[in-house]
């Protein structure tokens, strides 16, 4: 039990520390958003010929960004976190004039949709291809698959996304070329809408699949080859067990163990890369909003999106650590294990 508490505390600390780091960076760096807004206000006042009232400017900036520039950073950070925890108040977006929470709350399910399917497909393919390559080690299938995986690894996911969008979307018109849902359809549980969102999500999910797949398969092959040499596998074969049973119960289950944690961290990677994917497909998810906010220096929205992305990452690692015992009974609670 103490392990869980310690692990949770550690996760909370790294989450808050990560946020604090970003928060500080945003405040400290000259020319950052708070400075930019202040400078603009001061200039506006000069042009109007009025006296420059520091306090008034500070209030304006605070109402715009949720940050009071006169406050010391730790106090400002504390107030920011307090507002989030107590009132779910992430501030108001400068760009959209809407509460940040509402914007993100509407966008996040769409990002989840893309990421989760991308991850599931990608990881399943990683395991399958890795195990098959190892099982057929040294044959033509192995060599061919190795070359194929290496080629896939050297094509970045956004290149695949561009190619798919260009050919499948624009040239052949098989898939919609942007957006989340058909504009004509009513949102809800009707067939037209559901088919529409599936079509819109197909290409982004495919490009997420590449993020999840490419890196892992060679590693999976190496791990599986190591397991194939183990004694218990030979004795399983001597006992006359069927190939299928050996493959699934004996080989794959044991080979997955070392990369399980990597998979969970991979979730975070896919959420990150969603920023680029969503931009290419003009898919209005959390990443799409984050990119717009970052470019336009919409400070409250960036911080809000950041809380979300950091939260997903911490959660992914935590879940990996806590569930590791389920797939590897030897690990117990995983207390003495290297996390990756």
């Amino acid at each position, binding site marked *: 039990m103490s392990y869980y508490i310690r692990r949770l505390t550690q996760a909370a600390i790294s989450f808050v*520390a*990560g946020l604090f780091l970003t928060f500080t*960076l945003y405040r400290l760096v000259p020319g950052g958003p708070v400075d930019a807004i202040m400078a603009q206000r001061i200039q506006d006042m000069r042009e109007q010929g009025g006296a420059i009232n520091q306090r008034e400017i500070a209030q304006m900036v605070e109402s715009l960004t949720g940050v009071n520039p006169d406050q010391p950073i730790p106090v400002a950070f504390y107030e920011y976190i307090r507002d989030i925890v107590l009132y779910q108040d992430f501030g108001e977006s400068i760009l959209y004039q809407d509460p940040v929470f509402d914007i993100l709350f509407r966008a996040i399910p769409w990002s989840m949709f893309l990421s989760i399917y991308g991850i599931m497909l990608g990881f399943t393919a990683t395991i399958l291809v890795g195990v098959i390559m190892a099982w057929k080690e040294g044959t033509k299938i192995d060599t061919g698959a190795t070359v194929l995986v290496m080629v896939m*690894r*050297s094509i970045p996911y956004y290149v695949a996304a561009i190619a798919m969008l260009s050919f499948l979307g*624009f040239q052949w018109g098989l898939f919609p070329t942007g957006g989340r849902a058909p504009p004509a359809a009513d949102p809800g549980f009707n067939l037209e809408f559901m088919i529409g969102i599936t079509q819109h999500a197909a290409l982004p999910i495919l490009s997420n699949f590449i993020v999840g797949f490419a890196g892992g398969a060679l590693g999976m092959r190496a791990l599986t080859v190591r397991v194939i040499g183990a004694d218990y596998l030979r004795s399983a074969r001597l006992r006359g067990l069927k190939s299928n049973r050996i493959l699934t119960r004996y080989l794959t289950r044991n080979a997955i163990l070392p990369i399980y944690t990597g998979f969970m*961290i991979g979730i975070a990677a896919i959420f990150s890369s969603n920023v680029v994917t969503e931009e290419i497909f003009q898919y209005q998810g959390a990443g799409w909003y984050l990119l717009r906010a*970052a470019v336009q220096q919409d400070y409250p929205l960036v911080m809000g999106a950041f809380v979300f992305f950091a939260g997903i*990452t911490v959660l992914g690692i935590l879940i990996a650590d806590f569930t590791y015992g389920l797939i590897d009974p030897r690990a117990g609670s995983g207390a003495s294990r290297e996390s990756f």
Partner: protein
Amino acid sequence: MSGEPQSDGGVTQESIFGTSEDAERQRTPPAERIRRAFDFYIATPFRVAWSDWRTRIGGIGVLFYILMGTVGVVVIGQPQMNEGPRYVGPFQTMEHPLGTTNMGTDILKQLVHSTPTMLKMALAGVVFSVGVAVLVGMISGYKGGTVDTVLMTVSDIFITLPGLPLIIVLAAIFSPEDPFIVGTIIAINQWPRLARQLRSQVIALREEDYVEAARSIGLSTPTIVGQELLPKLAPFILITAGGASVAIIFQSVALYFIGVLPYDTSNWGVMMQLAYEQGNAIASPQRAGHWLFFPLVTLSGMAFVTILFAQGLDRVFNPRLLARHSKTASEAEEEEPGGL
């Protein structure tokens, strides 16, 4: 060795401070020593590398890209606007083999002149991420205790920071233009993973006999880490560095492509962005497709040869293979300073 008759009729003495081997080494003429060192450190690894198709093709490819970034820039002229007609297709004229952009700029010239920027970014990123990772991972793993806890907590915090979103935010704040700085910013979320991996390897190594021996004769920690541990881990570090450089190039091109990073000189990502924004290459590939396509191919090619090379290096560092290919293997083995 001892008791070997000498030309003067005496017998080799075995002293406390060294064996007759040392005496023999002192008598080896410098030219011979240089030849052996060359064979051991340069010629043999090269022979092993050449015997493996992955390192052979990968090495030639990497060399090609380096030449493109150094010699190619000198040989091929600076790209300019209105060098030719607008939107010349690829493989149509000898003057513009890969076609031209909407401004009539030659694409081949642009590709070549972008290479130094890409190489600089990869170099800066690799030096930073691998440097920090080696420092943190080695010290953390070797020292253990409080130092370990503190360093690993710090790297956990950096793992929590979501990669691409963080970089987008940082890029929006700093607006970096220097390729070295861009590479370093992108490497920020690369090092913690590598540091973790190195740490687990060092933890396994620190209990080895020869490290314990070094400790017991009172060598300082920097000496042990630098001279006993680092050489053992060099292959692993080099191979991961290959992977890190690919990741850095992918991310930088992604950032330029979605238009987050400012630029004053062209690079592959910028070319892709312009082709996408101004040439509308995705929607009308007949006209501007080549403008987008060639940077993509150049990028994927660079990634492919680097991955291939790094994969093959695995063999080069395998001591058994080295010994088989070495012409002076037996001597080389003896020349190694014996484990104290």
